[in-house]
C-alpha cells in the first residue's frame, strides 16, 4: 500500500512513476534537440577514414586536430574573430542604448498618437527586411555609407535594426514596472525628466540592459543576409563561413596531396563560428531564459 502510494501518488501526477515518465520523455526530446550539435561536435574531430567507415558512429578513432587547424587558417581566425566581435559590439551597443531611450519614452510619457505609434513600432517586427532592402540600399548609397559598417549602425541607432521591436518592448515593459511615485518625488525635488531618466531609471534597468545587449549581440552575429548586402561579404565570422568552400580552395589548391575539403573540416569551421555564442550562452544563460518574462507578452 505504502509502495503503491509512493509510485502512483495521491492522484498519479504526484507519483514517482509519472515523474520518471516525464524525465524519460524530456531526456529523449533533449537528445533529439541536441543531435545536430553532437553530430557536429564529434564529426568535426573525425579523419577521412572515420567519415567513410560505417562502424564509426559517435566516437572517432583518433582526434583529428588537423581539421581545426585548417579551419582556423581558412577563417583567418585570430584576426577575424576580433574584427567581427568589434563590429557586432558596435552595432549591438548602439541598438541597446537607443532602444532604452525609446522604451522609456513610450513607457513613461503620455503624448498624442502614442497608441498608433506604438502599434507601428510592434508592426515593424513582422516586416521582412527584404521589402525595404531596395530602397534602403539607395538611401545608403545617397548617404555614402554603403558597404561600410555605419550602414548597419545607423538603423540600429534609430531603432530600426534587426528585431529592434523586441528590444524596445523589453525596455518598455521594464520601465512600466517602476512606480511613478519614485519619479514624482524626484520631480518635486527639482529634477528634470532627463535627470530622472539617468539617475533613477537607468540604474534600475541594468538587468534589462544586459538582456537586450545579449540578444542583440546574438542576433546581429547570426544575421548574414542584410549584413552581407549592406556591409560586405567578409565582415563577420558567419559570412566568412558562407564562403568557406571558395576560400578553402584558394588556400589549399585542389590536386595536392591530402588537400581535399571534407565534411569534417567544414564542421570544424561551423563549430568555430558558433563557439563564441555558445560560450556567451553558457555564462549568461540565466539572462537569456529570463528574457521572455521580461517582455511581458505573457500578460500582466
Amino acid at each position, binding site marked *: 500500500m505504502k509502495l503503491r502510494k509512493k509510485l502512483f501518488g495521491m*492522484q498519479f501526477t504526484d507519483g514517482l512513476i*509519472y*515523474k520518471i515518465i516525464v524525465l524519460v520523455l*524530456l531526456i529523449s*526530446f*533533449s537528445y533529439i*534537440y*541536441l543531435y545536430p*550539435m553532437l*553530430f557536429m561536435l564529434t*564529426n568535426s574531430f573525425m579523419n577521412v577514414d572515420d567519415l567513410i567507415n560505417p562502424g564509426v558512429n559517435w566516437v572517432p578513432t583518433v582526434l583529428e586536430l588537423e581539421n581545426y587547424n585548417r579551419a582556423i587558417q581558412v577563417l583567418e581566425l585570430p584576426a577575424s574573430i576580433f574584427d567581427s566581435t568589434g563590429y557586432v559590439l558596435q552595432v549591438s551597443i548602439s541598438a541597446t542604448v*537607443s532602444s532604452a531611450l*525609446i522604451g522609456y*519614452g*513610450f513607457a513613461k*510619457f*503620455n*503624448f498624442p498618437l502614442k497608441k498608433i*505609434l506604438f502599434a*507601428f513600432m510592434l508592426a*515593424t*517586427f*513582422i*516586416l*521582412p*527586411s*527584404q*521589402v*525595404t*532592402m*531596395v*530602397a534602403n540600399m*539607395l*538611401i545608403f548609397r545617397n548617404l555614402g555609407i554603403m558597404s561600410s559598417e555605419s550602414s548597419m549602425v545607423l538603423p540600429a*541607432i*534609430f*531603432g*530600426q535594426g534587426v528585431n529592434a521591436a523586441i528590444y*524596445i518592448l523589453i525596455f518598455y515593459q521594464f520601465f512600466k514596472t517602476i512606480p511613478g511615485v519614485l519619479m514624482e518625488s524626484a520631480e518635486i525635488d527639482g529634477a528634470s525628466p532627463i535627470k530622472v*531618466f539617468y539617475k533613477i531609471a537607468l540604474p534600475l534597468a541594468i538587468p534589462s540592459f544586459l538582456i537586450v545587449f545579449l540578444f542583440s549581440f546574438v542576433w546581429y*552575429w*547570426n544575421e*548574414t*543576409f542584410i549584413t552581407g548586402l549592406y556591409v560586405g561579404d567578409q565582415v563577420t565570422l*558567419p559570412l566568412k*563561413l*558562407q564562403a*568557406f568552400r571558395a576560400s578553402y580552395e584558394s588556400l589549399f589548391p585542389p590536386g595536392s596531396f591530402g588537400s581535399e575539403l571534407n565534411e569534417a573540416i*567544414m564542421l570544424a569551421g*561551423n563549430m568555430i*563560428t558558433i563557439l563564441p555564442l*555558445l560560450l*556567451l*550562452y553558457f555564462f549568461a544563460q540565466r539572462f*537569456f*531564459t529570463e528574457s*521572455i518574462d521580461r517582455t511581458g*507578452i*505573457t*500578460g500582466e
Partner: protein
Amino acid sequence: MTKKTINSKKLDFTKMKIFFIKISNFVSLLFEKLGYFLTHNIFVYVYPKKVRLFGIKFNITRSRRDAYYGYMFILLWLIGFLIFTLYPMFYSFYLSLHEAYYNLQEGITSTYIGFENYLNIFRSQTLVPLFATYVVRMILSVPLIIVFSILIAVLINVPMKLKGLFRTIFFLPVIIATGPVIGELTNQNATTLPALENSTLLVYITENLGSWIADPLVLLLNSLLLVLWYAGIPILIFLAGLQKIDRSIYEAASIDGASPWDRFWKITLPGISSLIGVSIIYVVVTMSLFVESGGILELTRSHMLVGAPDSQFWFGYGYAAAIAWTYFIFMVLIMLIFITISRGRKGSRA
C-alpha cells in the same frame, strides 16, 4: 616590495578617480551651458511657467510638457521609422509597379508597367513552386511547432530538480541557429534522425499517398529537427504562462474529482490559449525570415543584384520588390489564418 606596488596601484586608482570626477564636472558644466543656450535664445525662451516659441507664448501645462518629453525620447525611433521603414516601404511598392534598373551614372531608371511584375511572378517557372512549398511547409509545421512547444512546456513545468537544465537545452537553438551553420547541417543530413531515415516510414508514405501530400510530408519529416528548433522561444512563452496559473485551481479541480487529462484540457489549455497567437506570430516570422540558399528570399537578392538564371527577361529592382511584397503578403495571410483558427476554437468553447 609587493606592498609598495599595491600602494602605488591604490594611489593611481584614486588619482584616476579624481581625474574622472574633474572631467565629468567639466562635461556637465559644458552641457549645462549648452542647455541654457538652447532654452534661452531668440527662437525658444523658457520662462518658469511659459515658453516662447518663435515669438508665440504657450502656457506650460502638465500634458504639454509630458508630450514634449515623450516625443523627445522617441524622436530617434520616429526619425528612423520614417526614413528606414515607412519611406522604403512605399518606395519599394512604387518600384514594384515599375521596371527599374540601377546604373551608376543616372541612378535608378524606371518605366511604369503596372502590375506586370506581380503577374510575372505567377507566370514564373521557378517562383510558383517555391511559393507553393513555402505555404505548404508553413501550414504543416506551424501547428506542429505550437503543439510540440505546449507539450514540452507542460513537461518542463512538472516540479523537479532539472528544470533549469531543460530550459537551457531547449533554448539553445535560438542562440546558434545561423544561416550558414544550418545550411551545412542540412547538407550533411544532420537534421534528420537516423532512426527515422532507417525505418520504412518514409517509403510507406511515398508509396501509399499521392505525391501532392506525400512530398511535403517527407520534406517535413526530413527536416523535423530543424522545424522543432524553432520551438525555443514558444516553449519559454508557454512556460511563463503556465507558471502564472494558480496552483489552487488545480487543487480545487482534483478535489472535485477531475483527472489529470481533464485538468489539462479544462485548466491548462484555456490558461495559456491567449499566448498561442503571440507564439504563432513569432514562429511564422522567424521561419519566414530565415534565409535558406535557393529560397525565395535568396532569389530576391539575386534578382536585384545580378539577375537570376531564369530571368533573362525579368529582373531588376522592380521585380525583386514585387517578390518581396508577395512574400510579405503570403506571410501575413498565413499568420491571420492561423490566428483566426486558434481564436475560433476558443470562441466556440466559451
